[in-house]
């Protein structure tokens, strides 16, 4: 057989891999570049600060205890608001997912209120709940509630009918069906909802703290901005992004622990 052609490989690509060191190196490289540009005077430190100055500001804030005061106020609001919004959203979402009686009325209300930009409601909540903690926590809870309802409902709807029928065919009690079939089945959707609601919560937290607060990272960032203090301003932003990273790390852990079966 003289007439032969080698079969060329054509199945490559489309399968990007994760390379851990490349992620770290990129971030470190960007920070180093920023520092270099600032040190060389190519960017103005008055406008853009520099990594070293931000680190110094963070150190001072930490040492004076001011940082902790703002962070603890923010974390408290974040935790309370998120937990309230999540708990009520889960209850409502499961109810809409399971009961005809709840579904249509509930969906009507959720669809009507969901598109409202929650920040627009802050002034109203201030009138209703006062300028203190109440209005901030309610804003957060409100913002967290709707995506939680929608994700939980989608999760419950996605639980295979066959599993519920199986459970019924073995006479499992309604409570067992809820806790052993419906909720675990909806858990992946609920957890991916948590990713959305935690970041929504941080956004709303900062916005609410900028509207009326003297403590909290949002308030701190705003004050620093008013004083053209970019070192402290960016230090506040670094803290916010650290909070976001921590939350996302915790969620990743939860997913790994609770969704091992996948």
């Amino acid at each position: 057989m003289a007439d032969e052609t080698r079969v060329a490989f054509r199945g490559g690509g489309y399968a990007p891999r994760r390379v851990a060191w490349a992620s770290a190196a990129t971030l470190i490289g960007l920070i180093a570049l920023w520092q270099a540009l600032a040190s060389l005077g190519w960017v103005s430190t008055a406008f853009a600060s520099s990594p070293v100055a931000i680190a110094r500001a963070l150190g001072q804030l930490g040492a004076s205890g001011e940082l902790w005061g703002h962070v603890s106020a923010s974390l408290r609001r974040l935790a309370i608001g998120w937990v309230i919004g999540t708990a009520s959203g889960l209850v409502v979402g499961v109810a809409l997912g399971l009961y005809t009686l709840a579904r249509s009325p509930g969906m009507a209300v959720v669809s009507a209120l969901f598109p409202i930009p929650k920040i627009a409601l802050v002034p109203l909540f201030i009138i209703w709940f006062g300028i203190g903690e109440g209005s901030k926590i309610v804003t957060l809870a409100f913002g967290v509630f709707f995506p939680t309802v929608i994700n939980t409902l989608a999760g419950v709807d996605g639980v295979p009918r066959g599993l519920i029928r199986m459970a019924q065919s073995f006479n499992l009690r309604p409570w067992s069906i809820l806790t052993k079939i419906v909720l675990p089945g909806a858990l992946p959707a609920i957890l991916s909802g948590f990713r959305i609601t935690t970041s929504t919560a941080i956004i709303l937290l900062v916005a609410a703290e900028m509207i009326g607060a003297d403590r909290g990272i949002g308030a701190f960032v705003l004050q620093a901005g008013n004083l053209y203090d970019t070192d402290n301003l960016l230090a506040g932003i670094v803290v916010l992004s650290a909070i976001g990273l921590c939350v996302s790390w915790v969620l990743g852990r939860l997913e790994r622990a609770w969704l091992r079966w996948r």
Partner: protein
Amino acid sequence: MSVSAGGAQRGVGQGGVGQGGVGLCVTGLHHAFGDLPVLDGLDFSVAPGEVTVIVGPSGCGKSTLLGILGGLVQPSRGKVTLQGTPAADCLNPLTFVFQDFALVPWRSVAGNVSLVLEDTPLSRKDRQTRVADMLALAGLSAFADAWPRQLSGGMRQRVGIARALAVRPAVLLMDEPLSALDAQTRGLLLEEFVGLIARTGATTVYVTHNLSEATRLGQQILVMGRRPGRVRAVLRIDTPLAARRADDPALQAVERSLWDLLRADAAEADRELSHGG
């Protein structure tokens, strides 16, 4: 041995442990999904300790019928009655084995079997023993802690069987339990079913498309017609399950007559379609 066609009759049971078990009686059963009539007047009975096989063309309402037998579908008209009293240790008289296994993916193999015992009066210790016994019976002891996704199709259905037998059912309702499996696994599992059915003596209703499964297992074979389904014929095979051989000419004859009954229906459906019915 005798192979007879005719109306449903009480035959001799297979002689399992659960002798004097539970039968089913179906009277005047009709069902429609909205405007779609699916079952159109079924009357038959399932004798205690026997295997009743249901065959019929696709979409004729076999799964619907099985769902009604097991209380998962509410019939439009007619009723199903349990005849006899389940044994004292029976935890769920009417128990399903599902075509798609219906295993809970977030529970281990042992957890899936345990699940159906958790709402019963069984103590925790008895439950654990029962789970271990059932897994051993199904040859799954080594996989107790595996996730369902880690199992082959055949092993998944073994879990389905272990789970069903764990509640000591009076009647096993099996809807094409082998049709999601490859041919070799099907053959192996079918023989295991024969053993388990004989051993537990559970009355069995078995839906299948596969005519050799029908003649391997069926003591009474109900042939359903096209939708809306009725019982078109009832065949009996009195050869004990343990004595059946694939090359038995009598069994092959039953298989052929089943095929003749079904082929007629398929052809009819085809004609109807080509006339725009």
